[in-house]
């Protein structure tokens, strides 16, 4: 099975090289046969990588520790789901994922365009094949240069195969964390498609909107993947203790935001090119930037250069990836410069009050935001380069710049849909803006009267902007439905659904705007009005947190032999004004650790990996969030005593005898169970530190994300094709009549 996967991987590299050559021959000679052959090449790469991935996953499922990757990232006690997802925790596995997703995206776009783009597609195939060759080559280089790190099928020598793998870090055992990395990766990879077609369009000078029409769905898919990936990262960190807050958590997450920002700008600005033939240079530059930032995101995850500059040299993929990024940027820039004549706009902007100028403004803000985040994220490297002293920027610096831009973008999300293409007259302006502006004013009044608005002006402005945008988009949809009814005489629900399904792109986009508005309202409320309290409680004691009373009812404990963990928890009763709100069960889980000191098995247990299970009650207006940490200092003497006992016992036993080792392990298990009982015994239950947060409106972040994802899916869902051609036939007939009567 491993041999099959390895052979398929090697064959995939050869096929990618062939595909690159065939595509180049086809592109230069215009010979369809070579082009068709190169397309088949990509289908073959997809099948080969599918075989590779399946065989690697089967090694994980079988816990085949002769594969180094499996031994290092999985174990027999790892739950099945996490065995499957452990693949991309490693260098080799994540490169494999990259190449595999690329083969899916490339095969899909080549299949969809097999009858069109006779000129652009061969060049695009060549670009994608070159990138596939790069990543496959990086993996196979692991074999040649014997650095097993990048080669997923590296085998351990017969004598070195461990009986048990190292396992997956318990912190990563969270469903969101299992899907988060491949979502981000898929987002990065799918941007390859519009990038490759843009390069093809530049080379062939076919710079009308055809390359955009064929690839914009892929840009949207990439955007959706990145959005989901970022949201899952946020969701995961919300379930963790002490994630560090926005911006500060991990630069890798900021890096994933960069292509998201430029990609969002791209998705908007291509509409201007499609409709008005403007912004051509801007669009190709944007997609090149987005792709380069996607590669940069991959590079940052895999090289660890931002954690510390010293990590760079240790990583085997850092330098090649950096060279690829440089090649992409330099090559594309030269190509764009040489094609500036063909990139000239067909038109100019008619009026500043038009949808196209709103799109332009939106683009400038998104780019500005990307520049700010880029500068902040890379500041440690920049400052080290200039001053020799590494220094870093914290959340207040980011907020100072990103908040105003975010407010501007939120307003634009409402203004854009209200403004017509080309120009809007003053009277129409009044008609379009009356309701949204009133909604914003009402929202402001309500919040100020509620008494909390003025203390947090930024949150107030964000709420007002959110109300404006929600009202604007709502009015758009309502007026569209009314117009549709006037036209067809349908009932409201019928008119509503035909309006939406016949204009999927437009209304899907508006739904995304609503999602973003909801999300930003959630972010503003939860970061401005959070109450956070640390309390130390013993069973029976209670504390006041805001309007709530939190009582430590009783301790809980659990021993899990499957996952090798010991759980110390607490049941908290939360009441408000004497009425029970909820029971929460925060806990701390201690995992048997691989690096535990063998001389102190019990102490080692508590100094190994531990995770907090957050006790959380989610609600429409607020979440109650608690985490706990039992103060185990009163257990120290017992643990020390136990460890001493074990030391003596181990000295007496012959540790080469499996029976004796087993007996020792049994004793250890019994001791751990004893600690669990001690924890539950009212006389010896230790006090615990609790952090109790009341986070208002957090749920709206997740609702906003879900609404946005639904909107994006709605916009990219196919099926509009048939209707579109029917509509165009109607117009064709109309115009034909007009032509005839002239």
């Amino acid at each position, binding site marked *: 099975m491993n041999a099959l996967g390895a052979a398929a991987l090697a064959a995939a590299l050869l096929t990618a090289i062939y595909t690159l050559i065939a595509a180049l021959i086809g592109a230069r000679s215009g010979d369809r046969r070579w082009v068709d052959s190169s397309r088949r090449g990509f289908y073959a790469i997809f099948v080969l990588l599918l075989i590779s991935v399946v065989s690697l996953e089967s090694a994980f499922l079988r816990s085949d520790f002769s594969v180094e990757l499996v031994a290092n990232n999985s174990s027999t006690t790892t739950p099945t789901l996490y065995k499957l997802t452990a693949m991309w925790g490693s260098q080799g596995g994540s490169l494999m994922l990259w190449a595999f997703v690329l083969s899916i995206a490339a095969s899909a776009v080549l299949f969809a365009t097999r009858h069109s783009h006779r000129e652009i597609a061969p060049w695009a195939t060549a670009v994608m094949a070159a990138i596939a060759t790069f990543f496959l080559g990086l993996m196979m280089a692991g074999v040649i240069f014997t650095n097993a790190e990048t080669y997923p099928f590296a085998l351990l020598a017969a004598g070195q195969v461990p009986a048990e793998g*190292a396992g997956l870090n318990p912190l990563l055992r969270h469903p969101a964390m299992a899907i988060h990395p491949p979502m981000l990766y898929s987002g990065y990879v799918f941007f390859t498609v519009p990038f490759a077609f843009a390069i093809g369009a530049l080379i062939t000078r076919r710079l009308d909107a055809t390359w955009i029409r064929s690839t914009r769905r892929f840009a949207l898919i990439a955007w959706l993947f990145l959005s989901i990936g970022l949201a899952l990262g946020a969701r995961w960190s919300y379930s963790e203790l002490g994630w560090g807050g926005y911006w500060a958590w991990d630069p890798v997450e900021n890096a994933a935001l960069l292509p998201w920002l430029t990609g969002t700008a791209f998705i908007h600005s291509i509409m201007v090119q499609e409709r008005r033939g403007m912004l051509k240079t801007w669009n190709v530059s944007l997609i090149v930037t987005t792709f380069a930032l996607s590669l940069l995101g991959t590079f940052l995850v895999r090289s*660890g250069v931002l954690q*510390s500059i010293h990590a760079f040299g240790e990583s085997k993929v850092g330098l090649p990836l950096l060279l690829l990024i440089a090649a992409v940027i330099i090559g594309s820039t030269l190509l764009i410069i040489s094609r500036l004549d063909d990139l000239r706009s067909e038109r100019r902007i008619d009026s500043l009050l038009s949808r196209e100028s709103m799109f332009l403004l939106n683009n400038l803000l998104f780019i500005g935001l990307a520049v700010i985040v880029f500068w902040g994220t890379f500041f440690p490297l920049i400052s080290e380069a200039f001053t020799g002293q590494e220094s870093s920027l914290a959340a207040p610096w980011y907020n100072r710049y990103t908040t105003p831009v975010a407010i501007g973008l939120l307003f634009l999300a409402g203004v854009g849909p209200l403004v017509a293409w080309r120009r809007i007259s003053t009277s129409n302006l009044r008609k379009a803006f009356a309701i949204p502006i009133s909604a914003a004013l009402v929202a402001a009044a309500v919040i100020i009267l509620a008494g909390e608005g003025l203390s947090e002006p930024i949150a107030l402005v964000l709420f007002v902007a959110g109300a404006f945008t929600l009202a604007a988009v709502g009015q758009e949809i309502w007026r569209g439905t009314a117009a549709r009814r006037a036209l067809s005489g349908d009932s409201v629900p019928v008119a509503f659904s035909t309006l939406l399904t016949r204009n999927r792109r437009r209304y899907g986009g508006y739904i995304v705007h609503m999602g973003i508005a909801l999300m930003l309202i959630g972010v503003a409320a939860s970061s401005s009005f959070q109450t956070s309290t640390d309390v130390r409680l013993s069973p029976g004691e209670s504390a006041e947190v805001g309007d709530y009373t939190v009582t430590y009812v009783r301790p809980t404990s659990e021993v899990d032999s499957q996952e090798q963990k010991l759980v110390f928890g607490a049941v908290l009763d939360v009441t408000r004004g004497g009425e029970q709100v909820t029971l929460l069960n925060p806990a701390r889980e201690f995992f048997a*650790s691989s690096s535990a000191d063998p001389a102190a098995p019990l102490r080692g247990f508590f100094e190994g990996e*531990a995770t*907090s299970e957050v006790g959380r009650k989610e609600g429409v207006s607020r979440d109650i969030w608690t985490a706990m940490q039992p103060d185990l200092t009163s257990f120290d003497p017992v643990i020390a005593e136990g460890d001493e006992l074990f030391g003596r016992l181990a000295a007496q036993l012959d540790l080469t005898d499996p029976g004796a080792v087993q007996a020792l*392990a049994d004793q250890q298990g019994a001791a751990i169970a004893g600690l669990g009982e001690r924890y539950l015994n009212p006389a010896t239950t230790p006090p615990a530190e609790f952090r109790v947060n009341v986070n208002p409106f957090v749920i709206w972040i997740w609702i906003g994300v879900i609404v946005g994802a639904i909107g994006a899916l709605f916009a990219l869902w196919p099926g509009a094709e048939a209707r579109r051609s029917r509509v165009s036939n109607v117009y064709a007939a109309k115009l034909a009549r007009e032509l005839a009567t002239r």
Partner: protein
Amino acid sequence: MDPTKKRQIRLVTALSAAVLLAVALIYTSFNAANDALEPSQLTARADGTYDVTGKVASDSVERGETLRFEITDRDGGEGVPVAYQGIVPDPFREGREVIITGALNEQGVLVAEKDSLITKCPSKFAEEHGDDPNVIIEDA
């Protein structure tokens, strides 16, 4: 007004706005940033708040209402004692890399700001594994 001239004015306005923003960005970033130091560099500095990055020294962690531990350079060396209050992130443990923001007091203890302790995203922990865990808890 002549449309080309109008366009030029717009372009100049936009460009100068961009330049202003860039200057503000650069200027404030050098001002707002905390110097990121390794513990060994800390003793040479006078007062001030720094981001200190280093490893938690082994056998130095004392939990309690205040978390006390020592932090050393990545390559080891002399440790600096740290006093910290606030959330202790789950990945925190001896030998792991942390970032903490704080200032040295007269006793040479790094007094950390509340909730400033950060550990890195755990997706990069994989390389720390290596040896073979024993099965400790048996089925009852």
